[in-house]
């Protein structure tokens, strides 16, 4: 129904399999993630949402005993290909975690950290990036007078938005968010949701959430994972009004198991 106005896909997962030793954590995952849209990943604990998210910017590479088969194509190119530079991949595909993890340094340095590692030294340029990123993350007004104070002195919700600003500072194309609002109060949560919806004109957002209402509020597409498999992927309204698979229905209506 939405196939026509769905536009371009930015990432394609093609028969993706991932093993942690004997644990077959992702089983033949194939689907396309639309560009400039918000895609929600839902499913019960342990079904592989975070694992899948991490394969998208190769955060699983360092896990001992991990084996990955199949392909993840980013703009048509296999990110597991030999020629791929992981640092530049992660610049394009940024990640925000469940728990805010600002670096133990000033707010300014948190945001400037990424651009500096990519070689930007000019102070005026950095100032500009810091302000833009903090504005984009909807926290500029709250911190503009204390940029040189430690980021650790901020509230949880503010820290989370600092982390989003930090991810945005390197101008990624894709933002991966793993339960990024699960520890936040409703006000901070709605700020981050608003943010995600605003950002999608420029970024592609992929978010893991356990909050069905959140998936409904913000996402355009929803993927339902179960036991390492992708059960159903489709536009969010269809998934939540008439899912095709009985297991999806059971999960989203809270009648699972």
């Amino acid at each position, binding site marked *: 129904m939405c196939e026509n106005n769905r536009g371009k896909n930015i990432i394609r997962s093609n028969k993706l399999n991932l093993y942690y030793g004997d644990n077959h954590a992702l089983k033949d995952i194939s689907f396309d993630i639309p560009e400039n849209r918000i895609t929600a990943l839902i499913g019960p604990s342990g079904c592989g949402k975070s694992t899948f998210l991490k394969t998208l910017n190769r955060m699983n590479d360092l896990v001992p005993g991990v084996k990955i088969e199949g392909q993840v194509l980013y703009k048509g190119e296999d990110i597991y290909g030999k020629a791929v530079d992981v640092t530049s991949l992660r610049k394009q595909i940024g990640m925000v975690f469940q728990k805010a993890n600002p670096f133990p340094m000033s707010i300014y340095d948190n945001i400037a950290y990424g651009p500096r590692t990519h070689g930007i030294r000019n102070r005026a340029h950095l100032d500009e990036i810091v302000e833009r990123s903090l504005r984009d993350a909807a926290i500029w007004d709250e911190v503009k007078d204390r940029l040189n104070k430690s980021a650790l002195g901020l509230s949880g919700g503010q820290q989370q938005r600092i982390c989003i600003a930090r991810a945005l500072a390197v101008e990624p194309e894709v933002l991966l968010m793993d339960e990024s609002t699960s520890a936040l109060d409703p006000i901070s949560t709605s700020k981050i949701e608003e943010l995600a919806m605003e950002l999608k004109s420029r970024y592609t957002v992929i978010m893991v959430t356990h909050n*069905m209402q959140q998936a409904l509020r913000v996402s355009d597409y929803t993927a339902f994972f179960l036991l390492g498999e992708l059960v159903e992927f489709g536009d969010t309204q269809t998934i939540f*009004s*008439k899912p095709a698979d009985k297991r*999806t229905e059971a999960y989203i*209506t*809270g009648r*699972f*198991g």
Partner: protein
Amino acid sequence: MRTYFDKQLQTLNDEMKAMGALCEDAIALAAKALSENSRELAAKVPPISSALDQKERDVEDICLKLLLRQQPVAGDLRQISAALKMITDMERIGDQAEDIAEIVVSMSGCRQEEVELLNSMARSAIRMVTDSVDAYVKQDLELAKQVIAQDDTVDDYFERVKKSLVDIMVKEPDMGSCALDLLMIGKYFERIGDHATNIAEWVIFSVTGEHRSAELSN
């Protein structure tokens, strides 16, 4: 899983069943009052119609509470939103039964033979109402489709009623006021059939997620 929610959904279903039963009572009584030309029977219809108004508010309350507190999705959401739409039609059926009863009270001089065709029409309409509510309670797609098909029968009856009343008006002008009363009653039964059809369409939505209005606009 979700035992409490499922219990509340069951309560909703019971209320819908009760409301459906009131609907049937209302039009069955109105039809009987008509066929027996009985003012006593007709007088029993308005209280049922008031009870339907009350039930509509009760069910609305349950639905809104469920929407707010349980934030239902998928099949649950469809069932609750279908119920919310259906009660409007059920309440209207009560109003129309009351309108019929009101005419019966003031009607005079009609002969049994003129009323006969309307009785058949009434039976068809009552059947549609019963079946549409049944279809909801059992989430029975086939039964809902049958109701929609049956609407043609009721419409056909109405055409026949109109024709016979026109004949009467032409041949016996002094029967004109009776003919007009009967025409109104026929129109109300025809509307009742339409409401039952609406209910059946919401049952289909509840079961399949497809509503006919969407089909028509596509």
